[in-house]
């Protein structure tokens, strides 16, 4: 679905964000895009959506070059930005103006999502809270039936019940034809949702692996003491939360926050496992 070959991009000539980055993303997956502030998560998403132009290399999204902003590709992309704007109209007017651009738009599904999110349909979009607006835009994006769903910090501004609703809806929205990419800082919000982790660091991809692959190669557990076999550990109330190679094929649950910190701190140790 997406092929990135030697992507080079930077807002400043002397400070590139991506240097020869290459990656392939397939449909039927929910990718979690993680990285420190300024690592380029949002920028990578914008490159995929054609909102910024690559300075080198090629990008292929469903057979199109996103930089050309062709309608055939745009109608297959649902892009939920972190900061968004909704006009001063009611949901009905917004639908009337925007939904016809997407020939597969599912009005019934949109209404179901709006009901599930408990959105007041008679209220003007501009008067809704940030969280409500976000739910509207998520509902609209998913109802477009776009094959590529790109979400930048989608759970920001959602209350606790809405985050659970969001996870449920996203899990049900996943189909074999769809590719979902979610960028977030709040890794716990994506627990049990994403199936592949992509981590950006130092102008490139520090890790790209499925959850299955990670838990096959690494084990996450609480330990009392640190020894040489542990790649990375963080102190906790009853000892340490540690990441170590999974030599004995133990089953453990991926702790995304721990993995994130571990990769950033001990990148070299992890590299041979995921090269």
């Amino acid at each position, binding site marked *: 679905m997406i092929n990135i070959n030697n992507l080079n991009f930077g807002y400043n000539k002397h400070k590139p964000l991506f240097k020869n980055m290459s990656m392939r993303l397939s449909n039927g997956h929910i990718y979690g895009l993680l990285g420190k502030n300024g690592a380029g998560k949002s920028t990578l998403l914008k490159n995929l959506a054609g*909102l*910024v*132009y690559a300075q080198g290399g090629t990008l292929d999204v469903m057979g199109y070059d996103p930089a050309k902003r062709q309608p055939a590709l745009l109608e297959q992309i649902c892009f939920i930005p972190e*900061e968004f*704007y909704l006009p001063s*109209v009611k949901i009905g007017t917004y639908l009337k103006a925007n939904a016809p*651009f997407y020939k597969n738009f599912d009005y019934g599904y949109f209404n179901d999502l709006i009901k599930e999110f408990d959105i007041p349909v008679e209220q003007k979009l501009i008067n809704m809270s940030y969280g409500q607006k976000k739910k509207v835009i998520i509902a609209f994006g998913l109802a477009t039936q776009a094959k590529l769903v790109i979400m930048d910090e989608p759970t920001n501004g959602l209350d606790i019940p809405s985050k659970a609703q969001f996870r449920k809806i996203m899990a049900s929205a996943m189909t074999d034809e769809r590719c979902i990419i979610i960028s977030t800082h709040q890794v716990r919000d994506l627990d049990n949702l994403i199936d592949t982790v992509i981590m950006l660091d130092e102008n490139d991809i520090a890790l790209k692996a499925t959850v299955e692959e990670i838990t096959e190669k690494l084990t996450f557990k609480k330990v009392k003491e640190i020894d040489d076999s542990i790649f990375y550990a963080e102190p906790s109330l009853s000892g340490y939360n540690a990441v170590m190679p999974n030599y004995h094929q133990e089953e453990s649950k991926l702790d995304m926050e721990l993995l994130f910190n571990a990769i950033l701190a001990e990148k070299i140790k992890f590299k041979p496992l995921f090269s």
Partner: protein
Amino acid sequence: MNNTFNINRFGLLLKRQWLEFGKIYLMSLVVLTGIIIAFYFFNIPDLNRSLYRWDDHGHVQLGFRLPTFMAIGFLFLTIVASTYFNAFGQKPKAIMELMTPASVTEKFICAILFSTILSLISYLLIFYIVDAIFLNYFNELWQHNKATNYNTGKLTAVSFSTLFDDLTSEREFKFFFALPFFFSSIFLLGSIYFNRFHYIKTALSVTALFSFIIFLTIKFGNLMTEGKTRVYAVDYLEKDFVFKIFFWSSVALSLIIWLITYVRLKEKEV
């Protein structure tokens, strides 16, 4: 699927723009009508006047109308054009605009239609209607008045000239017909070029550029003519030629500026 231009998609885009901006646009037309009416109210001619300004067709001219028509028209057209792409100056709005599944060509033609064609037609129509209503009223008030037409020296019934008379009374006027498109194109470019304060920044840039061009022209003219004697005067045919050059230059410049706007829209990054 045609990714450059599709009439259905273009229709959807027009509808989308209208649903979002139509209300504001109609409100601006109401304000415009109010301003034009106010100008007419404050300039109702004095009924007891004996001296009038007559045109070549035996009508009395309304002296305030042409400057009012041009000044308000300039402001209206340039304000509408300079606000059209202002959404592109704000990241959240720009993302929504750029991600709308329509081609750059469709978005650009839509911009020209709304910012230039529609606003020009609505302005002409509103001015014409307000003018016609007031003329009707003035002609009724003056229907029994007669005054000496200084052009013919005869006592003539007072009837007022129309906006169309004003626009066609000077034979050179037709050479200025491309100017609304020219000014509109400049401010449309400004609306996508600048992220904030589009109108002020465009106006300042245009003033600076025009001042520089005028300065260069005067300097060049001085350089060419200083210490020389005139031996030949420009005749009417050459004057027409100069006006034609002016007309076609304004047409060409409008097209070039629209082309630059298209490229800016195409290359816009958020």
